[in-house]
């Protein structure tokens, strides 16, 4: 036994050395929630498009600088844009629309004007209402604005290209250039728009903290320089930083509270320091070995897996608690003897727990694999530490107060078995039944990913205001358009665009952007050229020129081969106008803004080959829903896996009895929570996985407790419950809904498992 203890010391030392080595090297900790989730899309192009769009949105920040004085707002905006642009954390800043950009677009399109026709003009010509275009042209030439001169009238007699430009979608919602500076007027205030693309890993904690700190510095500076200035900002990086720092604060607050309470509890119960030391040792070794082994297996760890895993190891603390409780045994025994008493229960407990975690491996969540491995290694290591080391380290015996503790623990047995408590039992049963019935009526599920994260109360109103002012909504729906060729993709978009326009008029969405707005398909350009030639130039041009008294020679008609292609446009200096909409020549995205009725928008793609509506947020939500379902199946699977293990020791009837308390707790916890209005989520289901593995442990301990020593066992189970409630139950206080749901389910589930655990015991 001593040899085994020394061998275990060697293993622990190796793990410590490996961990130390990795930490010095720099451990990769991931924070993006999506990294925990599986990539569900079977279609790599959809996945790639989502990643591209998500990356573009994830890297983007939007800042609005507002002031009652236009010049002041512009100066402040320019300064802020300049400071941002100077940072190595910022890749590019969009603040002013340079006259160059407008001119570049004009130069790129002008040679192909014969094939570029605004949708409204095409409709007029197709309906044989060319005269309206002539009227408009005359009105413009004679009108007060006076944009026409001889050069323009020669190149574009009916001023079709200006109308094509006018019907291009505004690139940034309501934001429009005001003397080059992107701005939004609102009431008496001018808002100057600044967008920036960040350079760096926006999902890395240190980048988030660095950038948020940097930006806050800039904001304070610009506010100090300009009185009465308003600054609004939004961006994934700000939310991530807020969430991380909030989680940090919460974790440390809840963590410290739970540690302090647990330590106090152990000290008060045992009135000795040694059990506390044992506990810390078992837990510490568990975390150390688990961390080292997981890093070895996965190369990196997700913060979520780490946190969840550490809490799962918390279960292992129970084993050392049970061992320590043996101190209270009425007949004083040496440490080795104490271990012998608890070994069957904690061995079976550890085994069922590890089996429980192994089922997590069946869930195709990369993050859950990490959690499973981390926890399984941790529990095994804690178990070995208890078994191999604690008896060697143990001194001392029970204190004089043991009797009172045992008497207290006995009460739970009495509740279930004493004939005098029959009415209490019935009342309790009735109450649970009532609660469960109410819960069954009010039961709801909620998988909405947006509600799972707690959105900062400071940032959300700013985003809403930015959305109101600019009409730019954060990442959301888009159409993915795929064609065999660039031409096919453009033609598919051209089928989609009129439907989008109708949907926009009906209010189903606010805005959309497509490549085909800028570059019509070759087929369309040729058709439009013919249309203009036959229905406008031939019947009206000569008369129109005569009416104006225009004497200059008409320009040569552009060559028929003059067709604008996507490839050429992308190579031109105006290519940036569509760069974000083109994944590659044959794969485009149509960005949608302010989608109000997703179902109506989705229906627009019906019958257009290669066009599909993509809803990344909805996909994650649906994924969470699917995995909520799978987690419940997982629960059943893991109970089924435990059954043979339990049957081998207790027989079939006994094993079912051992499963009874947990099964009841699993069924009742979500219903009782539903009764108080908490919806069932994926995170609740994950908590139930834990409730099962812990509840089984409690039941096993109650079952194993020899008749004369049941009080000691119950004290151990009671302590285990108390420590679990102190660690997980406190998560109920979290403001992040996912964590809150997890904590609340643990709280109720574990409390029920404990209260019902005696049902598994043998009758006295």
């Amino acid at each position: 036994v001593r040899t085994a203890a020394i061998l275990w010391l060697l293993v622990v030392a190796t793990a410590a050395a490996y961990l130390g080595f990795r930490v010095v090297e720099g451990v990769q900790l991931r924070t993006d929630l999506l990294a925990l989730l599986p990539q569900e899309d079977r279609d790599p192009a959809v996945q790639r498009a989502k990643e591209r769009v998500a990356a573009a949105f994830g890297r983007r920040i939007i800042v609005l600088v507002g002031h009652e004085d236009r010049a002041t707002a512009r100066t402040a905006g320019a300064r802020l844009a300049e400071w941002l642009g100077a940072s190595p954390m910022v890749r590019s800043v969009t603040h002013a629309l340079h006259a160059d950009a407008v001119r570049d677009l004009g130069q790129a399109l002008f040679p192909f004007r014969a094939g570029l026709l605004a949708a409204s003009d095409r409709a007029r010509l197709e309906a044989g209402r060319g005269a309206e275009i002539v009227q408009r042209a005359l009105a413009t030439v004679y009108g007060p604005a006076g944009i026409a001169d001889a050069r323009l009238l020669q190149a574009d007699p009916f001023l079709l290209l200006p109308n094509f430009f006018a019907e291009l979608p505004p690139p940034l919602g309501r934001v429009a250039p005001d003397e080059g500076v992107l701005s939004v007027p609102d009431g008496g205030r001018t808002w100057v728009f600044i967008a920036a693309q960040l350079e760096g890993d926006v999902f890395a904690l240190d980048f988030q903290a660095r950038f948020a700190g940097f930006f806050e510095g800039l904001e304070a500076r610009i506010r100090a320089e300009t009185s009465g200035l308003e600054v609004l900002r939004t961006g994934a990086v700000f939310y991530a930083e807020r969430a991380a720092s909030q989680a940090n604060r919460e974790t440390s607050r809840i963590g410290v509270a739970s540690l302090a309470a647990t330590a106090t509890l152990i000290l008060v119960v045992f009135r000795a320091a040694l059990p506390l030391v044992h506990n810390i040792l078992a837990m510490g070794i568990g975390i150390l070995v688990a961390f080292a082994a997981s890093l070895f297996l996965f190369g990196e760890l997700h913060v979520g897996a780490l946190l969840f895993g550490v809490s799962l190891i918390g279960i292992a603390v129970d084993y050392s608690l049970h061992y320590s409780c043996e101190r209270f045994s009425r007949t004083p025994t040496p440490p080795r003897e104490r271990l012998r008493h608890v070994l069957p229960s904690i061995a079976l407990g550890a085994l069922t727990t590890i089996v429980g975690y192994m089922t997590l491996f069946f869930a195709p969540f990369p993050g859950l694999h990490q959690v499973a491995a981390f926890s399984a290694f941790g529990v095994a290591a804690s178990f070995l530490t208890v078994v191999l080391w604690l008896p060697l380290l143990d001194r001392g015996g029970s204190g004089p107060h043991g009797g009172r503790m045992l008497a207290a623990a006995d009460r739970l047995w009495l509740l279930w078995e004493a004939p005098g408590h029959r009415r209490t039992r019935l009342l309790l049963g009735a109450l649970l039944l009532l609660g469960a019935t109410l819960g069954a009526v009010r039961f709801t599920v909620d998988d909405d990913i947006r509600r799972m994260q707690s959105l900062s109360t400071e940032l959300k109103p700013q985003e809403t205001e930015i959305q109101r002012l600019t009409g730019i909504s954060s990442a959301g729906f888009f159409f993915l358009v795929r064609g065999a060729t660039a031409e096919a993709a453009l033609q598919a978009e051209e089928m989609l665009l009129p439907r989008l326009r109708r949907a926009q008029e009906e209010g189903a969405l606010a805005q959309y952007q497509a490549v085909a707005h800028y570059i019509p398909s070759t087929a369309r350009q040729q058709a439009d050229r013919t249309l203009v030639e036959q229905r406008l130039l031939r019947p009206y041009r000569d008369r129109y020129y005569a009416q104006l008294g225009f004497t200059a020679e008409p320009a040569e008609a552009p060559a028929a081969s003059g067709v604008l292609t996507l490839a050429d446009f992308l190579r031109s200096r105006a290519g940036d106008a569509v760069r974000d909409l083109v994944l590659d020549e044959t794969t485009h995205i149509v960005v949608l803004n302010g989608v109000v009725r997703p179902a109506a928008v989705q229906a627009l793609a019906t019958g257009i080959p290669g066009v599909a509506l993509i809803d990344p947020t909805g996909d994650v939500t649906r994924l969470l829903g699917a995995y909520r379902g799978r987690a419940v199946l997982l629960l059943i699977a893991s109970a089924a896996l435990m059954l043979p293990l339990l049957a081998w020791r207790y027989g079939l009837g006994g094993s079912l009895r051992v499963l009874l308390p947990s099964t009841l707790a699993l069924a009742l916890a979500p219903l009782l929570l539903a009764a108080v209005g908490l919806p069932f989520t994926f995170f609740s289901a994950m908590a139930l996985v834990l409730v099962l593995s812990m509840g089984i442990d409690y039941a096993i301990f109650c079952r194993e407790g020899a008749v004369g020593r049941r009080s000691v066992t119950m004290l151990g189970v009671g302590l285990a419950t108390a420590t679990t409630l102190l660690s997980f139950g406190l998560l109920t206080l979290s403001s992040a809904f996912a964590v809150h749901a997890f904590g609340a389910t643990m709280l109720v589930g574990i409390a029920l498992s404990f209260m019902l655990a005696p049902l598994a015991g043998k009758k006295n």
Partner: protein
Amino acid sequence: VRRLLVLFVLVLLCAPALAAQPLAPGERLEGRFVQERHLKGFAQPLRTEGRFDLVPERGLIWRTETPFATVTVISAAGILQLVEGKETSRIDAARAPFLARLYDLLGGTLGGDWRVLERDFSVSRSGTDERWSVTLLPRNTAEAVAQIGQMTATGGRFVETVEIRRPNGDRERLRFLEQRPVREPLAEEDERLFARLGR
């Protein structure tokens, strides 16, 4: 679109006179205009005649009568052009914020604040309040206003002539006649025009 600025600056030119003897609150300005555009490549100048109605804090209605009838409405909400009652073109201020800004400029100048105008143009005035002349030269050749070229306006109580010379040699001459302040409320039709434009 940029050269719409021409019109606005033109409207602004009403200001010096109005500042000397401004419209009373609730008054608007009615009158006739004659516009002649001398463009290269045309046999004769493009000549337009019609009526205008300047409503402080609402906007401008510009009705061309010859050679044919069109209506242009300009307000803080944007620009709307109608031919025979049918909308032929519309530009929302949201897509051209300088409209809203120029509208502010107008408000400022009506209040006698010349500094806003002097930021974009060098302004030289001569004559008396009864018989004055103003010349505007764009300050920054890179800005949109540069395309307007040089402008000269003359007038007495109100602006009477405006002459614009473009960098390419084209020029434009506007005369305002029969101007008078009016107190009666807008005609229902004109109210509808502003409403159609929005805001």
